[in-house]
C-alpha cells in the first residue's frame, strides 16, 4: 500500500544521507517562500545599508572620516550576519503558528532537517545580504586590500558566523509562545550583543567591565577578523584591539562558531522533538 515510499533507512551513513536530502527539500521550500514573499529579504538588506550610511556619515565625521568608513565595514558585516539569527527565529515561529511543523512532525522525515533546512536557507539570505553590503561598502570607499585567499577566508568566516547564529535563532523561535513573542524576544538581545563589541567603535575607549565583554564577544572577533583579512586598518587615533581574542580574531571567531553550533544544535533538536503546536 505504501507505493513509492522509501523503506526505513538505518545506519549512520544512510541516516546522514536522509538528513541532507530532507534538509535540501526544506531549503527548497524556504527558498520558494522567500521568492514569493521578498519583503523579508528586502528588509534584511536595507537595514545594513542604512547602518553603513548612518555610521559612516553621522558618526564618521567625528571618528576619522574615510579611514573610519573603511574600518567600519568589517563591523557592519559582522553585525549584519549576527542579525541573521532574527530571520531564523521568525521563520520557525511562523511555521509553528501556521501548523506546518505539525505536518512535518507527522512525516517519516529527519527531525533535524526542518531546522537544518531553515538555517541553510537563512545562510543563503546572508550570502545575498553580504553581496549587497560589499557593493555599498565599495561605494563609500571600502576596499579589499589583502589577497584573494584572505578575502575568501573572511567571507567564509562571516558565513560560518551567520550559520552558527542561526542555531541560536532556531532555539528562540521554537521556545517563543507565538510570533509576537518571537519578534520581540528575537530582536531585543541583538542590540546589546552587536553594539557591545568592536563593530562600530574601538573597544579601548569603553569602561572596564564593558571592555571585557566586548573583547570576548564573538562579534568583535568576526569584525576584527574581517578587517585583518580584507586589510582594512583602523584610523590612527583608535587604540589597538588588545586581549587574546583581539590578537587572534580568526581562530577565536571560528572557535566561537563551532562552540555555538555544538551547544545549540542539540538543544534545538531536543526542543523540536517536544515542541507543541499552537
Amino acid at each position, binding site marked *: 500500500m505504501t507505493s513509492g515510499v522509501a523503506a526505513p533507512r538505518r545506519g549512520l551513513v544512510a541516516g546522514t544521507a536522509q538528513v541532507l536530502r530532507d534538509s535540501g527539500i526544506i531549503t527548497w*521550500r524556504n527558498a520558494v517562500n522567500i521568492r514569493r514573499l521578498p519583503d523579508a529579504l528586502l528588509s534584511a538588506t536595507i537595514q545594513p545599508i542604512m547602518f553603513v550610511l548612518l555610521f559612516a556619515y553621522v558618526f564618521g565625521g567625528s571618528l576619522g572620516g574615510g579611514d573610519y568608513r573603511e574600518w567600519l565595514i568589517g563591523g557592519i558585516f559582522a553585525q549584519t550576519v549576527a542579525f541573521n539569527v532574527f530571520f531564523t527565529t521568525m521563520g520557525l515561529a511562523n511555521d509553528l503558528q501556521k501548523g506546518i511543523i505539525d505536518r512535518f512532525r507527522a*512525516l517519516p522525515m529527519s527531525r533535524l532537517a526542518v531546522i537544518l533546512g531553515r538555517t541553510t536557507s537563512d545562510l543563503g539570505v546572508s550570502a545575498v545580504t553580504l553581496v549587497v553590503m560589499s557593493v555599498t561598502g565599495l561605494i563609500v570607499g571600502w576596499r579589499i586590500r589583502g589577497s584573494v585567499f584572505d578575502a575568501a577566508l573572511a567571507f567564509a568566516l562571516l558565513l560560518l558566523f551567520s550559520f552558527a547564529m542561526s542555531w541560536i535563532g532556531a532555539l528562540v523561535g521554537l521556545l517563543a509562545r507565538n510570533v509576537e513573542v518571537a519578534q520581540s524576544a528575537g530582536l531585543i538581545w541583538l542590540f546589546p550583543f552587536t553594539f557591545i563589541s568592536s563593530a562600530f567603535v574601538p573597544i579601548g575607549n569603553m569602561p572596564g567591565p564593558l571592555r571585557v565583554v566586548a573583547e570576548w564577544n564573538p562579534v568583535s572577533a568576526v569584525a576584527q577578523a574581517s578587517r585583518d583579512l580584507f586589510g582594512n586598518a583602523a584610523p590612527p587615533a583608535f587604540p589597538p584591539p588588545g586581549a587574546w581574542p583581539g590578537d587572534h580574531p580568526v581562530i577565536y571567531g571560528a572557535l566561537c562558531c563551532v562552540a555555538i553550533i555544538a551547544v545549540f544544535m542539540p538543544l534545538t533538536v531536543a526542543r523540536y522533538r517536544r515542541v507543541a503546536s499552537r
Partner: protein
Amino acid sequence: MPATAVEAEGLVKTFGSTRALDGVDLLIPDGTVLGLLGPNGAGKTTCVRILSTLLRPDSGRATVAGVDVLADPDGVRRRIGLSGQFAAVDENLTGFENLYMVARLYGMSRASSRSRARQLLSRFRLEEAAERPAKGYSGGMRRRLDLAGALVAEPPVVVLDEPTTGLDPRGRLDTWEVIGELVTDGASVLLTTQYLEEADRLADTIAVLDRGGVIARGSSDELKAKVGGERLELVIEDPIHLPDAMRVLAGIGSGEPSLDEQAQRVGVLVDGGAKSLVEALRRLDLESVMVVDVRLHRPTLDDVFLALTGHAAEIPAVQSSEGAGE
C-alpha cells in the same frame, strides 16, 4: 495487513493539572471508520496527536497498523496520513508544490513525487488552482489540499481531525464524499467531529468522548436507541399550564421531559415521530393548554450528551477555540 488499524489501551495524558485523557481505549477494525464524537475540550485532538506520534502519552499503549507509536514512531508515520483541524498547507507554495514537497519528504523520487502530486490534484479537483499559491484558496480548497497531503503515501490508516469544522455546507459535502471514497479504497479512518450528523453519515462505529473518557460506543443506531428517536419541543402560551404540559409529555415521551421556564418550553425524547407529535397536541388540546410553537427534530450532539451524561455538551460559541485548549 494486520486485522486492526488502530488499537489503543488506557491512554492517559495530563497537561499541568488538566487530565486531557483519562484512560481511553479505542479499537478500529481494518477498513472501517471510527467516529470520535465529543465537544471541544473532550480530548479528541489529544487522542489524534498521540496516535499520529505528535504527543507521547503519560501512560497506556497504542498501535497503528500494527506498529507501536512509542517503540517505532517513524514506522507509524510511514503508515498514517494526518489531516489536522487547521489546514496545514504552506500558503506561499502552490497546490502542486505543497503536495510535491510532502511526497519528497515521504522519500519518493522526484519523478514519482511529481506524478503523485498531479494525480491527487486532479482527484481533489484542484487542477486549475495547481499553479497558484495556496494563499488565494478558499477554505474548502485548503482543506482539500491538506487532505490530499495526508493521502500522498496511500497510507492504510488516515486520521482526520474535525475535517469539516468551519466549512460551508458545500465544502462539508465535498469532504464527506472524499472520505467515502477513501473507505471504498480500503483505508481505515479515525475521524473526530462535533457533529452527530457527520459521525452518523461516515462512521461504522462511534465513540463518544467526554472529559477525557469514552462514555459510550457503538454504531450510530445503537447510540440513537440510547438517546431515543426524536426530540419534541413545545412552547406553551401560559406559564400556568407548564406543569400540565410536563405531565402530558411524561406520558408520551421515552424519557424524562425537560423544562425551560424562562422560554416556557417543554421538551422530551419520543419514539413515535410525527405520531407522538399529533398525540401530544391532541392531549394538550383536551386539557385546554395553548401551544404557540412546535418542533420535532432528530437527536443532536446535545441530546446524545444529555441522554448519556445528564449534562449538555457545552459547545462554546467560538468554534475555533479548540486545539490550544486540548
